[in-house]
């Protein structure tokens, strides 16, 4: 059985000390029009972040954009040896627009690692990750952690167009079976994704399923996990203020023992058991 995600005793550094690190920007590149890749010097303990854990970024004021709150971002890569921390983000509004003004050499603060990340069970031999958009940023470190444990990975990467398939090379580099599915050629349609999942299950390559970045994919994954009786986890988003479980603004509804209960995405998650998570 999976350990409960709520006890905070997952396999990784989920209980690592949290620090508000003054990081230095090493590089900051446009991946495409909408996405930016940010590499920071952060040192330990920030770089001990586990896959699925996140950081709370203090976006700098710039011109008319003066974000007041921090903005949460998933760990895209954390390398304790190199002391580097990476984020992949989409320019959405005030805060992310302000983030784009950071230049190499600039410094800014990130708080973390925060929250409960993904859990990998030693008994699994092969998992499926199913993501879309920046959700793939969240799943990439999980796939790498799985590979390090000798768990095989199939990565179903959904995107609007081929050029928006994010991070395919990261999944490929660990030897994952990469399956891009696109809106542009219709392959991202639920029926097709369901078919892929079905054949993976038949091949015994789906001991668990992980998803992030799309409500439609979440529902597919949840149905699939239920049907197959396998484990599954989802990384969720919700607007945050404190990031430390104090303000209760980041709640979502979860189904626990047949009842709908509120849980805090920042503290009880952002990774939750697929069985509990509800559609949004």
């Amino acid at each position: 059985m999976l350990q409960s995600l709520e006890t905070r005793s997952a396999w990784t550094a989920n209980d690592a000390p949290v620090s508000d690190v003054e990081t230095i920007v090493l590089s900051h590149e446009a991946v495409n029009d909408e996405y930016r890749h940010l590499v920071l010097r952060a040192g330990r303990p920030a770089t001990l972040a586990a896959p699925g854990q996140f950081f709370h970024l203090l976006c700098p004021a710039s011109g008319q954009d003066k974000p007041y709150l921090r903005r949460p971002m998933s760990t895209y890569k954390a390398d304790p040896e190199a002391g580097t921390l990476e984020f992949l983000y989409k320019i959405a509004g005030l805060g992310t627009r302000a983030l784009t003004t950071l230049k190499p050499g600039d410094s800014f603060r990130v708080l973390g690692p925060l929250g409960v990340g993904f859990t990998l069970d030693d008994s699994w031999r092969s998992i499926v990750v199913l993501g879309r958009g920046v959700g793939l940023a969240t799943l990439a470190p999980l796939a790498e952690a799985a590979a390090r444990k000798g768990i095989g990975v199939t990565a179903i990467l959904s995107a609007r167009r081929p050029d928006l398939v994010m991070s395919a090379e990261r999944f490929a580099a660990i030897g994952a079976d990469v399956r891009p599915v696109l809106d542009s050629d219709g392959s991202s349609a639920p029926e097709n994704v369901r078919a892929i999942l079905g054949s993976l299950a038949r091949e015994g390559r789906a001991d668990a399923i992980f998803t992030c970045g799309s409500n439609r994919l979440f529902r597919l994954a949840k149905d699939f996990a239920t049907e197959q009786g396998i484990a599954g986890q989802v990384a969720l988003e919700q607007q945050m203020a404190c990031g430390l479980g104090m303000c209760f603004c980041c709640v979502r509804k979860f189904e626990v023992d047949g009842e709908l209960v509120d849980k805090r995405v920042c503290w009880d998650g952002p990774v939750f058991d697929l069985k509990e998570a509800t559609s949004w």
Partner: protein
Amino acid sequence: MVTAASSSAAPVSLGVEVGGLRLQNPVMPASGTFAEGLARVMDLNRLGAFVTKTITREFRAGNPVPRVCETTEGLINSIGIPSKGLDYFRDNVVPFYRAYSPPLVVSISAPTVDGFASMARDLTIPGVAAIEANISCPNIEEDGRSFAMEPRLTEAVTAAMRRATALPLWVKLTPNTGDIVAVARAAEAGGADAVVVANTILAMRIDTETFRPKLGNVLGGLSGPAVKPIALRMVYQCADKLAIPVIGCGGIATAEDAVEFMLAGARAVQVGTTTFVRPMAMIEIIDGLAAFCARRGIADVNALVGAVVDGNAAPEEAEALL
């Protein structure tokens, strides 16, 4: 207690006596902006006191999301006091804080005078050092009028709690009343040991793309640096008129802000929203207060309390002249 200032060898005494409690320093969290999670970031033993999120007797779910929205240098929240109830709190939260030395102040809310009194009584237990009554909630016996909007209701609810507990009793006021001094005096008359000035200011925002309110609950309470000069003014007005201490709260982000509140008459300060943006802020404020006093040759932080120099002022007639 004596704490060494970080920037100087001269010891500065930061200890304050506030509403029946002796605190090692005048800095504590504001209710609803603090919980066990902060222990992952800082040494909780450095704080002057702990103040919990407001609890209610029964389970409450809280408000629909979105529960917060950002504004210029501020935050509007309408969390709605989700609460697991008094029993859960007594059995699970109080024990957590036993491991730490600062006193635990429990914030309570109830829809009736008796509700407040009975909660105060039931929380008069080991591990709880003081009660903070969040009386900005509606009184269902009085047509839903908020206790803290009216002196009469404030005095009644304070007096009932006073009879129910021997613990130090702090009453937290709302800035949304037209006469906060009258409400503060009513709390004092009812037997409060201190007043907290103040809670959030009713506010709203609308999303100009969707035309929807930015909060699930439409209206919420504004906090953060934006409200600081308003809260400061209320502290100044109240401190002058009360014998009991005033605890300042509203937009405090730096040691200089804390000094400003103490000069205005606050005996201690609560730091809320700032912790969301700079989680170490309370520690920085404590160190900064010591450094400030050391630099100015002030041996005891109490010397700041009410030390504003306002000789030629007639503050009560101030609005006359705006």
